């Protein structure tokens, strides 16, 4: 057996009334009171995750004493698609509940931390607002609205780029493309815009109210939050505290830890970045979720205390 799995076991399981959820259970050989971790899919990628990072992360966390379940939503990976009238969100919420019910009934685990990247992060926080068993959520690049400061940062960064000015002078680029579209003089293929993947719909009052409601719901259940933002979705977020500015109606108190990894892409493609992520997660879990017999350490206003190397430049 390789070194990584010497202290843990892994088992393939099927969960749910129709055994429709395929999952891998990773657990330490010696049981602990630490919260269990549940890892959700990213987009349509199966539970292994891009660059196999959720497998490595599962094994590392299991080595640290956590029970870890990584699973596939119905229709993804090794879980068959569900038939019925439920929306995709409802189906996925029901699947998370099935996993938590299984962990409760089979393993006696009622302290759960959800973990997800991108859509997985969004579904983690939505579910966390609905189930008090979720004691924490690790949100990697969750969807948040852009703010006034985001736009200022974005404009500043573009003005600082040489390409911006060479494009202006040569009649190319984003600005001229917009001008041409306004003047209906666009010919030839549409130019790809750097911000074309942004989600302005998140800035609608209804969307902000929805997000504030789910984040506040999680906080009302006393959940701890770790939010890690990367430079990948630069069209959507570009500074560490954006989530706080974007959702002013949420009282995060001292239970939100924030990181902005400006030298990291959305899927954590480089191994060094994944190692950094694993360390951030392990440290946060150790700090916020000590074993039940240990005395809880007061960690204070952690949203103000990030590693300065991980910050985007402040303006």
């Amino acid at each position: 057996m390789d070194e990584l799995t010497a202290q843990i076991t892994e088992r393939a399981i099927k969960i749910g009334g129709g055994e429709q959820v395929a999952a891998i259970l990773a657990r330490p050989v010696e049981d602990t009171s630490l919260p269990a971790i549940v890892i959700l899919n990213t987009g349509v990628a199966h539970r292994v995750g891009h660059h196999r990072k959720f497998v490595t992360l599962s094994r590392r966390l299991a080595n640290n004493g956590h029970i870890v379940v990584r699973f596939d939503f119905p229709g993804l990976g090794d879980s068959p698609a569900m038939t019925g009238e439920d929306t995709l969100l409802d189906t996925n919420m029901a699947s998370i509940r099935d996993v938590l019910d299984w962990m409760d009934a089979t393993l006696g685990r009622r302290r759960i931390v959800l973990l997800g990247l991108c859509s997985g992060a969004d579904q983690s926080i939505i579910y966390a607002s609905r189930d008090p068993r979720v004691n924490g959520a690790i949100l990697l690049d969750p969807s948040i609205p852009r703010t006034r400061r985001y736009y200022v940062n974005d404009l500043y960064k573009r003005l600082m780029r040489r390409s911006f000015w060479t494009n202006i002078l040569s009649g190319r680029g984003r600005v001229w493309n917009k001008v041409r579209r306004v003047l209906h003089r666009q010919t030839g293929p549409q130019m790809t815009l750097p911000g074309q993947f942004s989600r302005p719909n998140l800035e609608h009052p209804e969307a902000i109210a929805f997000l504030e409601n789910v984040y506040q719901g999680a906080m009302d259940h006393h959940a701890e939050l770790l939010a890690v933002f990367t430079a990948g979705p630069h069209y959507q977020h570009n500074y560490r505290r954006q989530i706080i500015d974007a959702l002013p109606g949420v009282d995060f108190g001292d239970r939100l830890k924030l990181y902005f990894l400006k030298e990291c892409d959305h899927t954590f493609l480089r191994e060094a970045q994944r190692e950094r992520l694993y360390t951030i997660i392990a440290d946060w879990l150790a700090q916020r979720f000590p074993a039940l017999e240990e005395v809880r350490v007061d960690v204070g206003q952690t949203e103000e205390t990030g590693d300065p190397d991980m910050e985007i430049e402040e303006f």
Partner: protein
Amino acid sequence: MTPFYFGSRERRLFGVYHPAQGGGGSRAVVMCYPWGYEYVNAHRSLVKLASLLSQEGYHVLRFDYFGTGDSAGEDHEMTLQGSLSDISMAIEELKDLSGADHVSVIGLRVGAALAAQAARKWPDDISSLVLWDPILKGAEYLQELYLLDDSMRIPGVGPAAQFSPERGGGREVMGFPVTDALASEFSGLDVVSTISELKLPVFMVAIRPVPGQADVAYELSSRDGSGFELIDDQPVWHEEWPDNVGVIPVTVLNRIVSWMN
């Protein structure tokens, strides 16, 4: 479908067994995944192919090589030689599960190259072969991988790491280590010559022309029961986000199933 672990204590492999629907017979298929980022992208389509074959009455086993997916082992421990022995274990496992005396093997990309090698090595166990966009010349594939990684312009992605000799040397490529050993193995892949040595029926399907393909097509067209087809469909192993994310190459899958039948 049934997810489970099999193999030896030193080499635990994750597999998913799709039993033949409708009772089934003794027809069985082992599927061989591609490598690295191509595996992540193509997984969804290979699950679909396994499901289609199961509905057609085939017992199907798809599995992760050691050091990949949910199987044991770390990324840098994956080698082609080791993966070839994993294919042998998967064949034996599927024969036990299904009662089949021999199996067909379907491989995609590097998985196809491995499948061809397996067919040469264990001719009594493998009765037919489907090669889906196989890596025909490993040296060219390796250079394509390096070029692809080096030319990435994604915010936040820095240069690829070089690994120490203790880690097996080599460098990162698209999120996975290509150790010195694996690079050497990739460079040595020559599916064109391997195919020429095979006596069993081989169906090769590709979505784009590549160097060496015409030679294989000519070779296969001259044999009874073998063939080659170029089909216009999606490169499911290469994500061109967001255009082909989650897309299933229906035409290719249906053609593979019809050839198997």
